[in-house]
């Protein structure tokens, strides 16, 4: 014993004296027995045996750093702070005597100029108080959670019952729908027979209308031909000759600045001169397409000119945009340059992906409307009828009956689909993972908001996350309910497939869930662009083993 004490005095700079057990500096009580001053020291990895005086002599002998637990000499060693009054701690050896107080007992700075005060008691006390406070939250939260578990299970049971009921209702509704469909078919057949004669009347009226229109068309053509005849009849003798036509450069098809005879023969109908009647009968059918072509050309030239002007404007904007895009750190740009607000061209490729999600939804919606809209009674007489014929009494009665049958069918159909929709909803909900004990189920249908400087964020658990600019503007979806992250032990929810970022990925959200007495969205950040992190507290997360307890009340 006295031998040991002597050694302790001898090695006072090496040995920690603040503890009852004699051990080299920086060694935990548990490992103290591995350092026996009476014998040589073998590195823990067995690679080298050295005199015991080499322990903590500020020179690294062992590759595993085991000979220098109390100095900064070894690269991967640790220094153990006892921190009496608080929790003990291991710090990397490189923090020994570096001028920074890492251990609350100051034991890591035994040779530095830094005078580290022992703060373990104060720190320990506040740590204990904090732990107590959190334990209290956990306790209270845990009690609430028990109720939530009960509620969750109850909700699940209710869904199950409701689902069974819906299955029955669905069968009934299907039968009713079939029945109404049958009635409808029968009445519609009668209606169809009765309407037949009215259809024939309509047909006749249509033919007469068409004949009239044709005559009018010929009259218009005659006038147009007369107009052109007058243009070509240069000497106003009521006759057109080849000479006269040769004055019109439009006929110079081969562009040799001469109108050759063969270039106009086709339009002279193999005659030398034409009266206005000849012109109309013989020339006009050939000439008309040619003149139409010329008119179109002229219009197209005009259009091309307009387009060229627009194109030039577009290119200019593109040029400017490209310069901006180079630097595209969004918010710095003049407003009109931020998005390509260019009318031209409406290329499909250019369609913003951001809109796709919405478009799909809209398409679904339209389909449904079309379904319910089929077979409206007004369609029976055809859409183009200017004056619907007056029906005789019997026919009208049949129509009314058919309308009624259709109405009844629609109602039955609607009823069935309502049931099916609800059934689907419940089935989907029953597929969702509301936690191992259904403790998060009560959050379904609720929404929670958090507002920062710019945005109002919304979390609707098991549904979606979103943001909306505080000063108005469209809502942006930050994600749809995806799943609980694997290995997160029901502490992190993933909402993905949100709206696509400009020039970036689809938005997604992690919702980190911690124990708290309130159901509350407490912070939102965007650690990566378009990847959001929501912090949410709820008593549902207050389980005894949960380490993380929200520390604000």
């Amino acid at each position, binding site marked *: 014993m006295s031998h040991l004490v002597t050694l302790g005095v001898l090695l006072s700079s090496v040995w920690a004296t603040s503890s009852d057990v004699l051990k080299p500096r920086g060694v935990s009580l548990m490992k103290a027995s591995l350092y026996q001053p009476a014998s040589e020291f073998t590195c823990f990895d067995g690679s080298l045996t050295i005199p015991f005086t080499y322990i903590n002599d500020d*020179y690294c002998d062992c590759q595993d750093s085991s000979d220098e637990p109390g100095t900064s000499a070894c690269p991967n060693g640790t220094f153990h702070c006892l921190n009496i009054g608080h929790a003990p701690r291991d710090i990397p050896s490189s923090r020994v005597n570096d001028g920074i107080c890492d251990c609350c007992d100051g034991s890591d700075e035994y040779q530095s100029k830094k005078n580290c005060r022992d703060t373990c008691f104060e720190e320990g006390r506040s740590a204990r108080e904090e732990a107590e406070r959190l334990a209290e939250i956990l306790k209270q939260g845990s009690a609430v959670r028990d109720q939530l578990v009960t509620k969750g299970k109850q909700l699940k049971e209710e869904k199950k019952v409701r689902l069974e009921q819906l299955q029955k209702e669905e069968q009934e509704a299907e039968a009713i729908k079939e029945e109404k469909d049958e009635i409808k078919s029968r009445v519609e057949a009668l209606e169809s027979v009765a309407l037949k004669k009215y259809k024939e009347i309509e047909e006749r009226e249509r033919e007469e209308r068409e004949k009239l229109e044709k005559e009018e068309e010929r009259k218009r053509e005659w006038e147009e031909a007369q107009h052109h005849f007058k243009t070509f009849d240069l000497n106003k003798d009521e006759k057109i000759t080849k000479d006269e036509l040769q004055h019109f450069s439009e006929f110079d098809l081969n562009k040799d600045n001469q109108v050759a005879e063969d270039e106009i023969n086709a339009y002279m109908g193999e005659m030398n001169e034409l009266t206005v009647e000849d012109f109309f009968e013989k020339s006009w059918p050939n000439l008309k397409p040619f003149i139409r072509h010329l008119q179109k050309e002229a219009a197209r030239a005009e259009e091309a000119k307009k387009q060229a002007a627009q194109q030039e404007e577009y290119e200019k904007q593109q040029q400017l945009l490209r310069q901006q895009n*180079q630097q595209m750190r969004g918010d710095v740009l*003049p407003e009109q340059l931020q998005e390509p607000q260019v009318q031209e061209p409406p290329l499909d490729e250019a369609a913003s992906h951001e809109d796709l999600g919405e478009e799909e939804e809209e398409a679904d919606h339209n389909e449904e409307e079309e379904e319910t809209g089929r077979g409206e009674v007004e369609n029976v007489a055809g859409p183009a009828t200017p004056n619907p014929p007056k029906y005789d009494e019997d026919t009208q009665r049949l129509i009314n009956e058919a309308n009624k049958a259709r109405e009844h069918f629609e109602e039955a159909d609607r009823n069935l689909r309502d049931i099916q929709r609800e059934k689907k909803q419940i089935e989907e909900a029953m597929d969702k993972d509301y936690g191992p004990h259904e403790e998060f189920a009560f959050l379904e249908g609720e929404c929670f908001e958090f507002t920062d400087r710019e945005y109002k964020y919304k979390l609707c658990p098991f549904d979606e996350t979103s943001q909306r600019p505080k000063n108005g503007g469209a809502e942006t979806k930050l994600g749809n309910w995806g799943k609980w992250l694997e290995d997160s032990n029901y502490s992190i929810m993933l909402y993905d497939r949100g709206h696509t970022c400009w020039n970036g990925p689809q938005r997604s959200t992690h919702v980190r869930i911690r124990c708290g007495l309130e159901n509350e969205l407490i912070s939102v950040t965007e650690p990566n662009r378009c990847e959001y992190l929501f912090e949410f507290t709820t008593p549902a997360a207050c389980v005894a083993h949960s380490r993380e307890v929200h520390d604000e009340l």
Partner: protein
Amino acid sequence: MNSDSSLKKAALCLVLLCAAQLVTSVDQNNFKKCDQSSFCRRCRTMQPGSAPFALVEDSFQISTHDVKAILLNKENNVQFTLVLTSLRDNTLRLFINELSPMRPRFQVPFVLNELELNNNIKFHSKNPANISMTIGDEHAVTFTYDPFVLNVFQDEKVVISVNSKGLMKFEHLRTKTDQEEDGAWEESFHSHHDSKPYGPTAVALDFSFPDVDHVYGVPEHADSFALRTTDGGEPYRLYNLDVFEYELDSPMSLYAAIPFVTAHNSRHSVGVFWLNAAETWVDVTRSRSSLTGDVMSKIVSFVSGAGGDSEAPRSSSNVRFMSESGVIDAYLTLGPSPYDVTRQYATLTGTAPLPPYFSLAYHQCRWNYNTQKDVQEVSTQFDTHDMPMDVMWLDIEYTDQKKYFTWDPTKFAHPNEMVNNLTSTGRKLVVIIDPHIKRDAGYFLHDDATNNGYYVKNKDGNDFEGWCWPGSSSYLDFMNPVVRDYLASRYSLDNFPGSSLDVHIWNDMNEPSVFNGPEVTMHKDCKHYGDVEHRELHNIYGFTNVMATFDGLLKRSNYQQRPFVLTRSGFAGSQRFGAIWTGDNMAEWSHLKISLPMCLSLAISGWSFCGADVGGFFKNPDAELFTRWYQTGAYLPFFRGHAHIDTRRREPWLYGAATTALVREALRARYALLPHWYTLFHEHEITGAPVIRPLWFEFPQDTNTFSMENQFLVGNSILVRPVTDEGATQVSVYFPGPQEVWFDRDTYEAFTQTGTVTIAVSISKIPTYQRGGSIVPVRERVRRASSLTLQDPFTLMVALNVNGTAKGSLYLDDGQSYEYRKGEHISLSLSFANSVLTSRFASKGRLPTESWLERVVILGVPHNSYSKARIQSKSLGTTFTEVSYNSGTKSLSVRKPKVNMGEEWTISIE
């Protein structure tokens, strides 16, 4: 007609589609090709031998330090003065200006140190064709009168020949006539118009280097280290531009411009510095001596005079500078060794002053750390993962709406608290301050600048407005000394609340970047202080910005603290003010690879303090690229991780445990070597020697090394061969020099053969070698930040050469102040010979230190014939310690000599 128009429509669609898809790489259309810049077009259409310039024979005046003559443009009889001046340290200045210009032509200020004349010119001989002088003992010059040619001889051989290609151009100032070429008095690029009120003012001159196949320099380009020839393609362009997603292997301009070229062959190195800050293009060609009409073919030895020479040059490299305006002011640095050239260039433009110690350590940046909490958390995470880090950085988002010298009131509400948090673990902060000023009434800087006329003016004399980060912005005119002082004073701690002496500065966008300007920069007809067009000085705008910032940081500490400034733009001489990085690179292997030639080019052009964004700025690197980039970045002078705002977070622990461990090792390798880096930077300040060097600096006769850019030297003793290929499992390493030994720094394996060896590289391996004959000091104790290690012990790595000797040096000081210049430093000369390692003071400097010697590792000890080490020093007297020999690695380790590094000592191995 019909089909015609539909074709047009198809073509139209094609154009539009292309425009829509051009988002992932540089849009070349935004930047000029030579033929889109009228002066470049005019210069480049000249035929060799067509320069109409002749010297007037009887105009020569020769003094001991200069030669003056009249140069005549025979086409129009415009006269020019030519002055050749001999400067200290084998340097000649060739100055040509109009004899009587209509208005003074611009000459570049700020760049040059004070020139020291050398009175060593003597008339030698003349004849009807030429006149010759000797310059000192080793050099001579010959002027041929007509056509004008200047040949510079060293040891009787031509080393530089000026205008021997006959491509000189000097457009005198004139009044406008009707017969001017297109683009001479105004020109347009896209929608931008350049009014060019002074007409054509270009200058151009060719320099030939006989017998030289390799020329280097004229950074900054994302291109090979040895310059390519440019005939048939675009010339290298020097016009500072903010190029978005720049393209590799291209002569296009980037952010900085250093018009200095180095020519090297196995006998000598020379350089040409073309002092011109206007837009400049550089053609590089190679010619054979057999070319008819080539003046070079007629060039012969200085002594034997005219006539044939059996040793006629086999080929020559030719470099032609073409600038839009200014004068011809060229500096010929005559070497003859590569180190002579860098010293001579440093004599002209200065060296980088010793940077603060922390700035050589690792920097962590991102656009952007979102809040001060974010900054603090990242800093803490470095500790959690036991990774060293010295500096956290803030990009533009820390400001209140991009108003520099302000803080975002919500996200960075308590900057002092944030800075204190960092400094409590020995760390620093760097914040960005750009030269564009938000045009926002009520913003003090804008109000001051508007009221006092501090902004650059447009051609009509109003404050120039352009778009940059803040939206509508104006640009401080640093040509005005008052504006430089004003900016400098903004950095004082009183004027910049939230800053402290631990907050350093990053000047970005200082090309200047103008989003809606021609080529994303300022219009050339903008006006600066002194009625100077932007055209004249474009390439020194960034230089003057950083000059003012450096001055401000000096002043804020009352000249006590060394500033750290990072800049994106720069010019010759910018090395005096700070570090440069290679701008907005990309997370791609090719960009990792190009970072070596880019920094090497800058290093041999005076600017050593260079690095590339580790990880790549744009895009997301995978774990392998990320790891290799840290392993490479650890051996480039400026070591900073940085990322674009659209990239995923990539702090080095976010790639999983394996990558975290690999990056930790790369960081530790850097920190261990910091004493060596610091010593090299100190050497650079004194001698101008680049901190990283191409192999030919040390092995100038080894032609195998002349085009080498995938390996380099840190100082003269550490060979680095970064792994820059995806999936690489082996690399080729070239070991230069006969009679050299190279020791693998990880395994101590010795390589004694000259030539290429295939080395296996696992993901943890980056091949680095210590040269036999060198002693490298390291600090093996890596702490959270380098500032915490200044009193820590050293290990000396002694690598023996074939003679069993080695030498090295170690420089130490307080790491932050200027006291070292007053002698408060330790400069040690270390040598090993005859089994004795000695440390001797290499200067008069002294500084008390707690640092001691904890270990000596001697590599290349063939036998274990030693049992102990005898140590002698003043304070310890004579002591002994044990040594241990590792027969596997043939290394001997001296255990804990314990000598203090602040005194001289001797360690004998016995």
